[in-house]
């Protein structure tokens, strides 16, 4: 078992493994996305109050969930980096950040597009929107800090500390609708209670959520491979890889 972990932490092994994994992930992602989109745009019944505008939920909510999920995953990588200093964890950490930025921007922008017809405003400085915006700044800070430091192992340690310090924002975002009077609506889907959403509306949402997660995996792996090649530039396996590619 430990041997498997050690193997998994080896950059060369990970590079080959991820190369084989990516096609499978793409194969999983595509049908999920198509079914989710079809369900969300066509099958799901129109909302009583919001009409067809509510369909934005099928990109907005999964994007928002992803922005939080990716940050938590980054926090886990950060802990691994600080305690065990595993190179792969460092790479996965920094490779996740751009994906997180994308989803956070998407959540904010689709939220605006939903807010304008529904609430009459593009933006409001309520607790949830503000803390999600802060999350965007945290992600950008992570990327900025990593880029500013030349020695990448040191950079990864600094970034790990930053990620962990910023983790306090996550419960704030999540519970902001419970703790404060916000413009943003409360949670309709929780882990512990029955969702208050109609099942025909719920299923496409869950499919899109899973599709986005798989997408994160794909994006993460591709980013990680690029980062891996850059950081391991001087190592033997990169050299062998390059020679393989040029001879073939």
């Amino acid at each position, binding site marked *: 078992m430990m041997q498997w972990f050690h193997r998994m932490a080896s950059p060369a092994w990970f590079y080959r493994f991820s190369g084989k994994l990516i096609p499978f992930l793409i194969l999983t992602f595509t049908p999920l996305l198509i079914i989710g989109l079809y369900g969300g745009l066509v099958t799901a019944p129109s909302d009583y109050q919001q009409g067809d505008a509510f369909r934005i939920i099928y990109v907005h909510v999964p994007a928002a969930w992803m922005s939080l999920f990716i940050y938590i995953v980054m926090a886990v990588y950060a802990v691994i980096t600080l305690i065990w200093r595993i190179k792969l964890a460092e790479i996965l950490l920094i490779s996740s950040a751009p994906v997180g930025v994308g989803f956070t921007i998407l959540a904010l922008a689709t939220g605006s597009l939903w807010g304008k017809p529904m609430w009459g405003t593009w933006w409001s400085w309520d607790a949830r929107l503000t803390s999600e915006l802060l999350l965007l700044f945290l992600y*950008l800070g992570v990327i900025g800090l990593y880029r500013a430091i030349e020695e990448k192992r*040191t950079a990864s340690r600094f970034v790990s500390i*930053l990620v962990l310090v910023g983790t306090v924002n996550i419960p704030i975002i999540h519970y902001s609708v419970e703790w404060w009077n916000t413009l943003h609506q409360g949670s309709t889907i929780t882990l512990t209670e029955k969702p208050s959403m109609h099942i025909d509306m719920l299923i496409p949402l869950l499919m899109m959520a899973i599709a986005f997660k798989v997408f994160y995996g794909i994006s993460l792996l591709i980013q990680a491979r690029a980062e891996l090649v850059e950081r391991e530039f001087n190592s033997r396996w990169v050299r062998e890889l390059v020679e393989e590619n040029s001879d073939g």
Partner: protein
Amino acid sequence: MSTLNSLFFLCRRDVLIAFRHRQQALNPLLFFVLVCLLFPLGIGASADLLKAIAPGTIWIAALLAVLMSLDSLFRTDFEDGSLELMILENQSLTLLVATRVFAHWLMTVLPLLLLAPIMAVALGLSSNVLIILLTSLLLGTPVLSFVGAIAAALIIVIPHNGMLLALLVLPLYVPALIFGTSAVNNAALGISPEGPLYILAALLVLSLTLSPPAIAAALRTGVSQ
């Protein structure tokens, strides 16, 4: 030397050095005063408007002043190598760091609190609100110092960091700013400021206990590079 003794000694050293370089501590103060005075000039001197924005203005000016002072926290010691010595010599880097930030707050930020009432009056804040303003600043500025110190420690190896410090610190400062101004705004409206003040106190406790380890970890990483 017992731990408490050595911490007291360090605090005294930092305070003395800060006192000898008083001009450096003057910069944030001047900045604070400038921002507070520029607002009435820029927005137009309508008394009601000024009174309404006074709490936010003073808080923001204080926040920016603290932000300005953060860079000098660790940089000089890092660059001349004395930080490394301190890390090696001390059993508890966490306590050393806490002492350093406290000394910094004492010498650089506390003077702001002395100037704040004058600025508040200049912006037309009524005197009963003033007490709440001072309380909120007293509770909130240490949070800004301690949390800002984390960011200062994180960028210690980067020579020309410019906006990076502000980018890192912004998400972490916003809660303190929101609750601080909310307390004062409540008081100005006649509502009880207790809620936000309690939360500010909680933020203070959290930052006092959780930030020194983070700062210590960052400093160790920076020095060991």
